[in-house]
């Protein structure tokens, strides 16, 4: 079993507040792993530590065999780690197509070219259009991101992450704020991702979690409460306790 992502005693502390304490999480390659926990448990902080938005107070992050703990964000992306944001972090003034083309160009290493025009980057544009099509966003290609309805923006959020052709994908509540009907579409896309892509999903919708995940980690108060298969987690009394009143049962 090849390990795609691993953390060693990862901790993040601000003043007296411990957002993440001593997290040792292992993601094998191709994992379909969910991270659940009540609000404020430190899930997004964890993603921020993994991607490099925050530097840990202590501990390490490994991408495969490499220690990436002090590697800047964009270089982790170059090594195959991508994430989506819980709150839409898009390019409001760019069109959908421009946004995705930009991401594709960055991946292809041609975003630094300045003597040619964007339109001439045929392959990149085609790749972007194909990606948009797979997400049913092609019709909105020329729309400004800020003018899109929220659900579509959420899809653009995923498109940008997918455009980097990640080996490890960290999804932070991708379905947040989308009605169940539309989120089914979104999750179909995620489910259709290649088997060798490692996916870590933060979600509150338990039905989606139990449908998607092969392994679940429960985070409470910045620490791991327990880990296991969906069946084990579903049966765990402590988890139920933590989620009294939190779970959404459809």
């Amino acid at each position, binding site marked *: 079993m090849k390990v795609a992502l691993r953390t060693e005693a990862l901790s993040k502390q601000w003043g007296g507040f411990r957002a993440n304490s001593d997290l040792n999480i292992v993601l094998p390659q191709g994992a379909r792993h969910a991270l659940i926990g009540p609000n404020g448990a430190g899930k997004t902080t964890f993603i921020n530590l993994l991607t490099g938005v925050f530097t840990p107070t202590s501990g390490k992050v490994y991408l495969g065999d490499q220690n990436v703990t002090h590697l800047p964000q*964009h270089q982790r*992306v170059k090594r195959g780690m991508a994430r989506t944001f819980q709150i839409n*972090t898009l390019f409001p003034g760019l069109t959908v197509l421009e946004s995705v083309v930009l991401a594709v*160009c960055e991946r292809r290493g041609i*975003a630094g070219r300045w003597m040619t025009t*964007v339109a001439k980057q045929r392959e990149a*544009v085609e790749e972007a259009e194909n990606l948009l099509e797979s997400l049913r966003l092609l019709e909105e290609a*020329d729309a400004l991101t800020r003018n899109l309805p929220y659900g579509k923006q959420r899809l653009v959020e995923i498109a940008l992450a997918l455009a980097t052709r990640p080996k490890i994908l960290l999804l932070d509540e991708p379905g947040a704020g989308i009605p169940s009907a539309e989120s089914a579409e979104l999750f179909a896309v995620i489910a259709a991702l290649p088997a060798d892509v490692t996916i870590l999903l933060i979600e509150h919708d338990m039905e989606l979690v139990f449908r998607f995940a092969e392994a679940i980690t429960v985070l409470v108060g910045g620490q791991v409460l327990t880990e296991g298969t969906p069946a084990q987690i579903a049966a765990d009394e402590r988890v139920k306790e933590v989620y009294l009143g939190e779970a959404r049962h459809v």
Partner: protein
Amino acid sequence: MSVAAAGARTDDPGSRRLPDGRWHRMEIGFWLLPIAAFFLLPGFLVLGSQILIVALFALSLDLILGYAGIVSLGHAAFFGVGAYSAGLLVTHGWGEPLSGLVLAGAIAALVGYVVSFLVVRGEDLARLMVTLGIGLLLYEAANKAAFMTGGVDGLSGVVMWKLLGVFAFDLGGKVAFAYSLMVLFIVFVLMRRLVNSPFGLSLRGLREGGKRMPAIGSPVRSRQVVIFTIAAGVAGVAGGLLAQTTQFVGLEVFGFPRSAELLIMLVLGGAGRLYGALIGAALFMIAQEVLSGLNPVYWQFWIGLLLVVVVLSARGGVMGAAEALQASLRGKAI
């Protein structure tokens, strides 16, 4: 106006709206204006050169402000570096215009490169302070180094040799005007290419979503360094032009009012559209000329008021208003 019918996809990747660098008819019309002015308004050419130079300067600020989203309160620093470089070159014996201009741009770009590392580090406020500080620092330095720069009296006697060995700078300002126009146009074309390129797209990405850029693998800092350096170089070229065409360099090239006025021009014309910088500069300079007879206190008051009103209400300056108008007209046509 989406091209795709439901489900079907056209196979031509260029069919959607992406920056393609094609020249619009209005653009060509725009550039015919100064050419017409050259022939039709000989009395206006001295002011005209000034407008062209300031327009180039405004263009350079648009690159970092309108495209990369870096707020700078000290862009005049590079303008001043270019002006003094060009001026000092002449007073030390080398009066060839074109090479002087290239030198001015190169030195300004070098200073910009060094400064850029300070600028890309901090958050908005720290960046503002650093840019402001650099401008003030250079002002003081130029002031104190009066033995070289002429201090408060300024650097005079910047007498140029013939342009291309043929055209002497005349009092009527014809050669200066044509020279400034050529330089402006060439630099503009280069910058236009740049903003329509993938690099330009990444700059807009920086402006629109600074947080998302690293998450798609963009080396934000090095991009900012590059554009800041380029913008500094262009500002330096504008400064060099000023020195060469007015044969004088004063301390005010470094002054905060210059940087502030530049911001105002961009706001007036609309940032992030290149032409907005040119239009804003032209409008500002013409307004200033027309109103210069008025008590300068009034000018300052009304400019301040205009700025306050524009920020509180109009979005995107003249270009933004024009685009909004265009969009609503197009909407009505359908």
